[in-house]
């Protein structure tokens, strides 16, 4: 069941992505290769526009993509992707004053 669902999700992505390239790319610098799948079902703003999230929140998000929506992420890649997502926000200096994070 899962394999066919993924097939579907990924099959629709290239169509939209290639449409005149208007979607902002997800800068994949330093990303684990497995993170490339993060723009299969939605464009990268879904990731770039998130507030600064804790590592635990990013990990929960990656797991949610995998279990609820069927993102093809191997168990061994979950932490790598989550670490990268959290660290790129820190590097970008995101979350200045006024943005409280979950305790």
């Amino acid at each position, binding site marked *: 069941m899962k394999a066919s669902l993924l097939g579907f999700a990924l099959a*629709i992505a290239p169509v939209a992505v290639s449409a005149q390239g*208007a979607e902002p790319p997800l800068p994949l610098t330093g990303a684990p290769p497995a993170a490339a799948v993060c723009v299969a*079902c939605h464009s990268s*703003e879904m990731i770039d526009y*998130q*507030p*600064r999230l804790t590592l635990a929140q990013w990990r929960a*998000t990656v797991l949610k993509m995998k279990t609820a929506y*069927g993102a093809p992420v191997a168990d061994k890649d979950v932490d790598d992707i989550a670490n990268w997502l959290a660290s790129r926000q820190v590097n970008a200096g995101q979350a200045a004053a006024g*943005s409280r994070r979950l305790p």
Partner: protein
Amino acid sequence: MDHFIPSRRHFMGLLGVTAAAAFAPLRATDLQLPFDNGKRRLVEGVEGKGQMILQRTRAPLLETPFEVYDQGLITPVDRFYVRWHTASAPRQIDTPAFRVHVHGHVERELSLTLADISSLPAREITAVSQCAGNSRGFSDPRVPGAQWGNGAMGNAVWRGVSLRQVLDRAGVKAGAVAIRFRGLDAMPPQFGKSLAVDVARNDDVLLATHMNGQPLPWVHGFPLRLVVPGWFATYWVKTLSDIEVLDTEDDNYWMAKAYRIPTTPDGSTTPGAPAGATTPISTMPPRSFVTNLHDGDRLRAHSTQVIRGIAFSGKGAIARVEWSADGHAWHRCQLDSEGGKYGFRRWHAQMPVGAAGQQRLLVRATDAGGNVQPPTAGWNPGGFMRNVVESLNLVVA
């Protein structure tokens, strides 16, 4: 009534325009929503829209720029916010072949064409559609999800037929518990929302074909969408094609896992507290906004300033809107007569401006059920149902 059966050619023609526009913003400028990481692009021409805040290209999330709410009671179609979960609904619909299936716990299964639906008596209802996560970007602490400002809401005149007429034709069997609605979004877990039978049988729940007098555009659910006045828009299923009467509670993902709020009276909980019992989000608590002034605006000392805005509630008609400079003394605003119980209600007042310095402006709405906006924001892990009293800091000079 006028009938709604656009010719295929007409519709394909429309699609030609929107599909081309979808990926070719004509102009883009930057805008800062007032929260961290709130820089967004203001784009024009996406999905056939006028100027909108681009929250996500695919699947489209487009936010209405706030000034639109000051321009009229009805939100124009081309400035109306857009919210899709997946990019899997077809952009082209063969209208003659389109069917709405009514099945499940019914006496007679139905397979209705758009012509069948249009042959039923139609009505119009003015109602606010508001995303459950409108204003999520203001959640404190922040939570993941679409980081909307206050523009994931709009007020339109919806035209369609009462769902009840269709349910009566099918004959809902005794023992039915809920009615589930699905559209043409195909990506798993397939989008579906359900309403208790008594809610779905309210005459005001529509199978809508038009908004503001035009056939629904693709981004708003062409050719048919459910309109559930008073309820958050997650229930307003677009490209509606399947109505299933259930004899048990709906256990599909979008009811059982997503769009749920704590069972506390105001749907909020303490950040970081262990997850407690939750329930599906339902009707919208009252909100009100000043639309002609913005945070940081400058006013002339010792003058009188006209203030105006909008208010709405999904739990009862707006009974009163009040403004305050300190959160203690509240002053009645004048309510416009137009709007109806489900739509935006416009209000206005004369506000005395004091001596030079800072002046605050708070505004709060109360509905006929006695529901009133809270002075401090509630919080829940989904960032849903924000309805705190809004406040502006004004500069008097």
